[in-house]
């Protein structure tokens, strides 16, 4: 089933108290696709991601993960659904009091009955995927930002999730590391058969990997375009989207 929908949002409104961040967000994420959430700074990209991984309850609308209504159940139900998720946070969000290996082992220790030797083997495997095996016994403070990001990716993969969320995966990385991370993301998507939701405004990376997406507008506080970044770049007529995709200043002089 190539067109199976894994995540769907219907008329979601996100707000902090009375302040509305985005409204009327509807989107469907197909299984196996890489879905990009795009938009300028402060448009609510990260807030949307937060809501999708269960950190912020939307003030209106429905959110389905597979066939399950995500926000309808209780906390335990959401925790169950969250085991399908792997999240790479913006700066890695590794637990600083643990080594990289322990960071990846923790979810396995908490949610499986595997023996320590088996867990160690899986941890090594996940670190092997991201090319970080040598850092298994180091602490997060001892490695560089790019390595922290890759270690965060390995931790996101710990429980073999089928839906991965990446918050600005290439922010703060040099172009070469960033391109390698893109290839890694593609390889993992194809290898694991995972679905990936990515929040980013790194255009080259988006054009390279994403095959679907949504564009959020900070002014009207609604999504103004749907489609893959490549497609939006070439075909979208909306001036704002056009400006974003071609790195132009809009009429008010904002980037």
């Amino acid at each position, binding site marked *: 089933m190539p067109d199976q929908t894994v995540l769907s949002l219907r008329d979601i409104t996100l707000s902090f108290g009375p302040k509305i961040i985005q409204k009327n967000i509807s989107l469907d994420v197909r299984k196996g696709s890489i879905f990009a959430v795009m938009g300028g700074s402060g448009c609510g990209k990260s807030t949307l991601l937060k809501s999708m991984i269960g950190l912020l309850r939307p003030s209106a609308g429905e959110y389905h993960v597979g066939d399950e209504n995500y926000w309808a159940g209780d906390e335990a139900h959401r925790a169950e659904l969250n085991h399908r998720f792997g999240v790479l946070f913006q700066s890695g969000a590794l637990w600083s*009091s643990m080594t990289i290996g322990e960071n990846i082992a923790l979810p396995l220790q908490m949610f499986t009955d595997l023996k320590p030797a088996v867990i160690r083997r*899986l941890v090594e495997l996940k670190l092997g995927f991201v090319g970080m095996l040598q850092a298994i016994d180091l602490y997060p*403070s001892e490695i560089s930002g790019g390595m922290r990001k890759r270690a965060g990716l390995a931790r996101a993969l710990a429980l*073999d999730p089928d839906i991965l969320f990446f918050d600005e995966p290439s922010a703060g990385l040099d172009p070469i590391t960033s391109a390698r991370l893109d290839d890694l993301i593609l390889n*993992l998507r194809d290898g694991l058969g995972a679905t990936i939701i990515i929040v980013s405004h790194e255009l080259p990376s988006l054009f390279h990997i994403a095959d679907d997406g949504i564009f959020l507008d900070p002014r009207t506080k609604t999504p103004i375009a749907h489609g893959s970044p490549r497609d939006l770049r070439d075909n979208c007529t909306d001036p704002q989207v056009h400006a974003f995709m071609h790195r132009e200043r809009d009429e008010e002089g904002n980037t």
Partner: protein
Amino acid sequence: MTDQTTTGPSAAQPADRMPQWHLQGEQTAPVMVLSGSWQARAGNIPVFPKDGLKKAPGAHLSFQTSNLQVWDTGLVAFLWDLKRVAHDAGISLDMQTLPGPMRQLLELLPEVPDEPVHHKTARTPFLETVGNHAIASMTEVGVVSELGALTAKGAVLTLLGRSRMRMIDLLANTADAGPYALLIVGIVNFLIGAILAFVGAVELQKFAAGIYVASLVGIAMVREMAAVMTAIIMAGRTGGAYAARISTMQGNEEIDALNVFGIPTSTYLILPAVLSLIITMPFLYLYGCLIGMLGGFVVAISMLDITAAGYFHQTVTAFGIGQFVFGFTKSLVFGAFIGLTSCRIGLKAGRSAADVGIAATRAVVVGIVGVIAIDAIFAVIADVLGI
């Protein structure tokens, strides 16, 4: 390993769902046959033995995966074992015989993994450890004194109007260290006064000297308890907060930003913190004395046969102004000590979340132990001087 086993596709039986592998075919062209379900969560993924392949340089190993049922990263872990062993045996893997996803994951994994970097855990000899600690402690005393000197200099410059401590910082810190601490300082000192009165009343009553409970509570509060208890509370409350705040700023590179601008941390951060404690501690001490005596008064009146006026009179005559000055001076020193050490500990802290916890803990421990140690020194000095 040349037997030709054929397994039917009867997927329903549990025995078939076990992950199974065997090698078949010639030594120059071995075939790895995989069957069953390979899932990491099941915890039954076999390890490919290190001597599983004989040395056969130039040989190609191919895969047969037609009987494979479900698989996930567990299978990839096994294939990685195989990849490393095959590399050591000089055998190349025919990746084209693997299904696409499996191949893509396996290609990410290195044949010869880098050795994990370990921490050096060499034990230092005992004497060296002692020496290191001694030098570190002396350095620390020096650094804290220097910080104190810088802060004092900052204070003088601020008084002369040539430095820039922002009054708003001082006011905010003072509000936090003063009025907001009144409740807890009050409760603790009230109870300390009450406890002293209890203990005194039980003993003094036997000698019909119940009235001296007032003297006991008064002298104890004014000389020792109010100053020490207030300082301990402030070390836990405000000292811990300073250390946590400054070490978090350290983690966010906020201190670096201050340094780059050339804003001295001593006048911007430490001076308001230390000054606020120096300003508030004496007042908190006086307040603690009064509340402590009130606590003693409540207990004495309810337990003993003495009048309120009698208690008051006895208290007033119990100690002279010298005792007050002594306690007052101590509270000033305690305030400066807590402010300086907690800021220093915050500045010295590492940059992670765990380091913030360590810094806060250390500030509280150093604050409490230091306050009691300084109090002991004061007691000796007072004894020598006959105060």
